[in-house]
């Protein structure tokens, strides 16, 4: 080894692999602060804002879940409404049928949805790429048609959650006393907190998954399944793991959505437009394959809906046109564009090579 080689090695050894950025450290603190602010918001905010935020939170959580599935694991599903509807119907069955507390029922619905996801995966994982997308949609349709057969749950027309099922929800007396509100408003506040927990938990979950060995395996599969397998990644088990995990989270979100709506029908609960198309829009407008993207996407989506939804069909036409334009002109979405332009990453999941300061 010559002197030059040694010098080069010394120089190389000074490089470190990092995943943190300065922005991400600030964000970690800011994120905690933001969640705390949102948590105490019901003290000041009116019921209308709380209900709007519940909507924003569950759409964000759904978007993060879909993003993990499609953006990172390469499973481009058009059928996640299967688990939203499943979660919603399980919540109704558990609270009306078994008299379980709604909060416990939300968690249980997610776990049971995960159990359903295993046999579902064995069907849809037979298919790849576009076939998988269509197959997952067909499976969601099968769930919809099957749930329309249950007369106890209202059949094809659906059913309502009686107030008696949620009037004694865990913590309601405390909230009523604390905020000096009546039962319906107190119910909203509790629902709001669950929604906040899911919305804050979903990006954290995605972040932790991606930072782990498991996340590295996922990205490898997405980029080239054959190469990943030759490097020792068990592609089927990795994808199955992420699919079941996402199904559990999506099931919980679905249960929460229908706890809030208090009325369910097969057509609404298994709607491809509400729980797939809009969710995909949010992810893609913000930036697919990034954790920041869905957050930006949901803000854009909410703003559009808030100010333009009165225009009905024209609003939807605009939404479709916006999605098409983003896909054609800024394929990486708003966040993708910003991140590339200004080289920032708030949730850094990429392993970076850092040269020490000389």
């Amino acid at each position, binding site marked *: 080894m010559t002197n030059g080689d040694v010098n080069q090695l010394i120089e190389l050894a000074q490089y470190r692999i990092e995943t943190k950025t300065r922005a991400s450290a600030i964000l970690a603190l800011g994120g905690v602060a933001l969640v705390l602010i949102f948590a105490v918001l019901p003290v000041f905010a009116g019921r209308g804002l709380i209900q709007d935020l519940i909507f924003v939170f569950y759409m964000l959580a759904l978007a993060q879940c879909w993003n993990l599935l*499609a953006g990172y694991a390469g499973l481009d599903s058009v059928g996640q409404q299967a688990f939203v509807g499943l979660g919603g119907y399980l919540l109704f069955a558990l609270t009306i049928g078994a008299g379980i507390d709604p909060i416990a029922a939300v968690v249980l619905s997610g776990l049971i949805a995960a159990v359903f996801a295993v046999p579902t995966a064995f069907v849809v994982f037979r*298919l*790849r790429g576009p076939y998988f997308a269509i197959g997952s949609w067909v499976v969601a349709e099968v769930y919809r*048609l099957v749930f329309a*057969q249950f007369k106890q749950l209202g059949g094809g027309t659906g059913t309502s959650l009686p107030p008696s099922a949620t009037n004694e929800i865990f913590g309601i007396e405390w909230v009523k006393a604390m905020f000096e509100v009546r039962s319906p408003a107190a119910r909203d506040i509790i629902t709001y907190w669950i929604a906040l927990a899911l919305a804050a938990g979903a990006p954290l979950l995605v972040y932790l998954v991606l930072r782990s060995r498991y996340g590295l395996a996922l990205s490898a599969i997405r980029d080239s399944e054959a190469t990943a397998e030759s490097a020792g990644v068990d592609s089927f088990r990795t994808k199955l793991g992420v699919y079941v995990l996402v199904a559990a989270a999506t099931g919980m979100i679905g249960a929460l959505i229908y706890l809030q709506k208090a009325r369910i029908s097969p057509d609404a609960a298994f709607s491809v437009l509400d729980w797939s198309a809009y969710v995909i829009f949010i992810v893609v407008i913000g930036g697919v394959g990034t954790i920041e993207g869905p957050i930006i996407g949901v803000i854009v989506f909410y703003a559009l809906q808030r100010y333009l939804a009165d225009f009905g069909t024209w609003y939807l*036409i605009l*939404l479709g046109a916006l999605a*098409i334009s983003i*896909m*054609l002109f800024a394929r990486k979405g708003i966040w993708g564009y910003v991140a590339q332009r200004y080289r920032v990453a708030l949730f850094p999941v990429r392993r970076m090579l850092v040269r020490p300061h000389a």
Partner: protein
Amino acid sequence: MLEWLGTIIQGVLLGGLYALFAAGLSLIFGIMRLVNLAHGDLIVLAAFAILSLATWLGFDPFLATLLAMPAMFAAGFALQHVLLNRALGRDLLPPLLVTFGLSIIIQNGLLEAFTADSRRLRLGAIETASIELGGNLAIGVMPLLTLGSAIAVVLLLNLLFYRTALGRAFRATSDDLEIAQLMGIDHHRIYSIAMGIAMVVATIAALYLGIRANFDPTIGPARLIYAFEAVIIGGLGSLWGTLAGGVIIGLAQTVGAKLNPEWQILAGHIAFLVVVVLRPRGLFPRAED
């Protein structure tokens, strides 16, 4: 026994309609692997085009269909040329999202233009005419014509595919895009022509859709699912396979409906899932994925 024979005949005839929904989709999916989520809505769009020509200009629906064909060809060509060619690539997500957006735009545009009212194409006596087979069995003339048209469409598309220079270019781009480009094929132009042809087939499908039952701007996605099921069952790039796929879905639906009217759609989906679990690449795939 005879009752069941009737059910099976109905199923096969219904399969003809589904094959017509699927044939255009099969063509573009086979050639460019495009998952066109707006295909169902484009069929509904064609149905409204036929309806408009028939009511405003007073044409017979068959003549209106003939007039709508070149317009739909041009619309398909332009759509592919301006929009879809830019979305195609190795990644599945862009075409998925663009066609999802397109689907929403078409549905709501039609709602704006034609309201949510149910419409129907009227043909007069031929709508209810049937051919007696004896023993209480009769076949409707229109369903028979639908299946006949489906077979004719598949035959003509196959002739185009295997007997013409254009068809050779179709097959070449489908089999190996890079080599086809090296041989001087302008694949974007080929794709645009293919989409134009797919829209002509969609117009034929729209005619029979509009005569068979009521339609309104929102029914596209359900037709899309049946069409995709037929395409996937048939196998990538096989038009006869698509016809078989349509017949399988049609048969499953009528048999399911015979057992319990509420099971009609469900039975079709289950049949699809069973086939793909057993044969993930479909029954008669021509091309590699």
